[in-house]
């Protein structure tokens, strides 16, 4: 391992200036990707600029929008009841991310900037139409997360730019989301494939009745009922992990579902479309045929779960 100097700026401005003056430097948040890459000799920066003392990056703001600071840890997200209730897919994702030790230090900003095809928070953020907030010397810019991912481990930002956070607009009523990570182990594992979905429904039936049903019936009973009510899908988002060089949205499947009534048939068709959009490869961690097959299964399950959660 090459030696490096470690800097701990106290503000975003200081960090930006440090980066400019040091030249050969890299930002480090939790370090759970950075340190692995240094040890594996994939990178050998002379300077590490730590973002962990910048308190402004560590907050979850619930104002007009939901704003998650880039240095918010996965454990912080996991414990946030508001996120659990309204942005459940994100909660699902951090629940099975790494281990407690990893979650205690690893950040959402690091997860997104590292841009692994398997990054667990990527798909949930995609289905919430998240925008990435980026700071440089000139000021702040904001781009859709969908445009931020360029390829494996590659994002649309200059090296010296700091991601300050993520902006998520509030979801309309009757929205529900889910993230399913298909992995070989329950912890400390990367997904073979993963799928996040978010539905916004417009129930034309008696909502109170539905809510009661949701509360009283077991999940499987409610699931079969749910599909017979003829609820219309107002908006659908489907994102898939490890099926392409970058986290991918299955826009064709979203479009198909949008405006349709939520039936078993429609869900199956959407899942088929998602699977056909996926372009998985054979790798050590999973074979392409299996990944494609799993996209189908997981998409269906995630849609059902999202629909149910829309009434939670």
């Amino acid at each position, binding site marked *: 391992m090459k030696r490096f100097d470690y800097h701990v700026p106290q503000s975003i401005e200081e960090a930006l200036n440090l980066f400019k003056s040091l030249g050969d430097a890299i930002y480090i948040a939790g370090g759970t990707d950075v340190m692995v890459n240094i040890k594996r000799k994939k990178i050998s920066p002379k300077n590490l600029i730590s973002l962990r003392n910048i308190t402004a990056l560590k907050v979850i703001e619930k104002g007009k929008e939901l704003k998650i600071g880039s240095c918010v840890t996965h454990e912080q997200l996991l414990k946030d009841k508001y996120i659990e209730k309204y942005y459940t897919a994100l909660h699902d994702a951090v629940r099975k991310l790494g281990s407690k030790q990893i979650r205690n230090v690893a950040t959402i900003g690091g997860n997104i900037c590292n841009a692994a095809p398997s990054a667990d928070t990527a798909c949930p953020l995609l289905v919430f139409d998240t925008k990435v907030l980026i700071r440089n010397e000139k000021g702040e810019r904001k781009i859709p997360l969908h445009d931020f991912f360029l390829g494996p481990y590659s994002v649309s930002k200059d090296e010296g730019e700091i991601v300050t956070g993520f902006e998520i607009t509030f979801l309309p009523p009757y929205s529900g989301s889910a993230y399913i990570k298909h992995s070989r*182990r329950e912890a400390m594992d990367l997904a073979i494939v993963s799928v996040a979905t978010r539905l916004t429904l417009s129930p034309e039936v008696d909502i109170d009745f539905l809510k009661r049903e949701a509360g009283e019936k077991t999940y499987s009973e409610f699931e079969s009922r749910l599909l017979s009510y003829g609820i219309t899908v107002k908006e659908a988002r489907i994102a898939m992990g490890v099926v392409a060089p970058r986290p991918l949205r299955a826009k064709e499947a979203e479009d198909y579902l949008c405006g349709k009534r939520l039936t078993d048939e429609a869900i199956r068709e959407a899942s088929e479309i998602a699977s056909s959009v996926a372009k998985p490869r054979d790798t050590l961690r999973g074979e392409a045929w299996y990944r494609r097959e799993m996209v189908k*299964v997981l998409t269906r399950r995630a849609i059902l779960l999202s629909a149910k959660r829309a009434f939670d």
Partner: protein
Amino acid sequence: MSFNIIGKKIPKKDAPFKVTGQALYIDDVELPGMLYGKILYSKYPHARILHIDTSKAEKLPGVKAVITAKDFPPHFRIGFMKDNPPLKGTKVLSTRDEIAAVCAISPEIAEEALDLISVEYEVLQGIFDPLVAMREDAPILHEEVGSNILKLPWRLVCGDVEKAKKESAYVVEDTFTTQWVTHCCLATSGCVAYFDVNNNLTMYSNTQIPSLAQNEFLEALTALGLRNRRVRIIQVTIGGGFGSKLDTYPYEYIAILLALKTRKPVKIVFSRDEEFFATSPRQCTITKISQGCDRDGRLTFREVEMILDNGAYTSWGATTPSVMMMPISSLYRVPNVKYTATCVYTNNTYCQAMRGYGNPQATFAIESSLDHLAEESGIDPYDLRIINANEPGEITPQGFRVTTCGLKECIEEVAKRLNWKEKRGRGLKKRGVGIASLIHVGGGARVYKSDGCGTIIKMDDFGKVDVFTGASDIGQGADTVIAQIVAEELGVPVEDVNVIHNDTDICPWDVGVHASRTTFVAGNSALFAAKKIKKKLLEILSKLLEVPPEDVAIKNGIAFSKSDPQKSIPLARALRRIHFTTGGSMLMAEHFYDPQNENLNKEFRGNLSAAYAYGTHGVEVEVDTETGKVKILKYVAAHDVGRAINPLLLEGQIYGGVLQGIGYALSEKMIYDNGYLKNGNFLDYKILTVRDVPPVEIVIIETNEEAGPFGAKGIGEPGLVPTAPAIANAIYDAVGVRIRDLPITPEKVLKALKEKNKG
């Protein structure tokens, strides 16, 4: 019998040291002037070495020595078949082949020096499949051997299999394959070697076989021209062994040579990468098995043909068929048995002992095939097992004399707890149940000429006891169990017994920690030594208390007269009295215990162990038929252990075994692609995490083995032996597909389900 200390849940003696970081592992050893050794491995799985240039590495500041094959005597070889040169000079046969080594004043410099060594290769076509290696036209990997098939013809024939096959009412035949898995010791392999001015060698090591390693290093010193020297092995705290440290490896000889060259202590500790690719895994096998039974379900024969990928060199992995014979000949009563095994050289990694020593591979085939036979004959798998269960007093076809045997109780208990009758064969909600049993050596195993272990015991002036044992503790708890045995016998508190087990200068000989033998063999050795010292002690106490020796009892470190408890004396005072008098003495005793078991003869028969351990595992699974994922809902492990000396440690052994077994069954696999290990890290090598642990229920069956210490039999390995077939059988019960190739991944299950639905 009632006990004070035996049967009590006493926490491991070494636990506080480990959890507080006080335990000294190999990585913690620092000696003055110590250098750090690193090894350059081959780039190719099969190649001729044309040229090695070490000049640049030698010139790097901080580098103290660089060695290659020419620094070893030309014909020096190591390993069970003496086919492995510690450094390879002319040809490499696998990607873990050692070509050169350096030592330097820091590990970083040593690492940098490796990059400066250039090696010119002529790449040769590799052979990665034992079936290909066995072909007539395959290139010969070891010219000196003359064949890719090892000259180790494993063959056991009992009765007349051909005849029995013809006469059987039902016969099944299947082929099963198993994968390479690795031990995943928390502490990696390593050693520190140094020579004193007289050229005597001290090795700090985490070996499992101090006495045998001592012998092998002495041979190496002789080969290096150092005759009649001493070798002292000091074992550090060993962070897991599981068989991986049952042999000596090239890195140890490399450290020795570097230490000799530099006259400095040299440390080599494996990185996690090295631990994955440069240690020897459990062998992968191809097993063809056929079994039959009569109309009533009585087994008539068992025929097994096995091919083992030996890899490039030979370690103990090649001898695992000697243990596979045990379940093949003796798990359930089967009168006619035929077993042959062929070990084949390939350009893959070479294999070693790993917990169970072949037994998991063999039992996977036997117990999966048995369920197939149950289906074929229409007999409930539970009934089939009960009908054929071994019984006490039996002599098996291979000549094992079964003393205690709780197999039937194990099967019954597991079935009861699984709710077998209710649950089996329903396939409700894609759930199913499966069982599988095991036999293993439980009273040592005579694989070397001696299966013995020595103990020296002394008592000090304060009533404390020091026990010097040959046994090794690799985390299994030998020190705790030995302390309990001695404390029980002597009537002293267990805290007063100090077990010393880590230094060949001090501790007597022992064949090593393997074959689930330590509690039985080292335990007996300690027990008999304790009996001897107790006899002396009672005689002395009888004089001091003025009562006959039979009337003296010791409890909690106090000696008293049984008939008149008023007459008493603290042990410490008694010991000082006899020490500090004219012509005084100190209390000491020794014992060398070698169990009454036999080497297998030329026909591979004989009573290998003084006692046999049995067990049955049962599992309920749920299969996700859309994803192929298998979820374990309930796991029951019943083991006949003779006696539980320490139920806490015993349960720990079984939990650990079951977890390792589930990994073997469902997720662990070393993925080799043309000789290169592709998943040598904990991310891609899927050892289970704590979050994957299913509920495990442990049932301890005590049969009180007369030959064992306080009735105990060995339990080190059995916990993982029948796990894979129990799970495979449960999957079959749940969804009707039988996976014959480990690990049972979701992909395999899903594929099988799709094929089943097509057909």
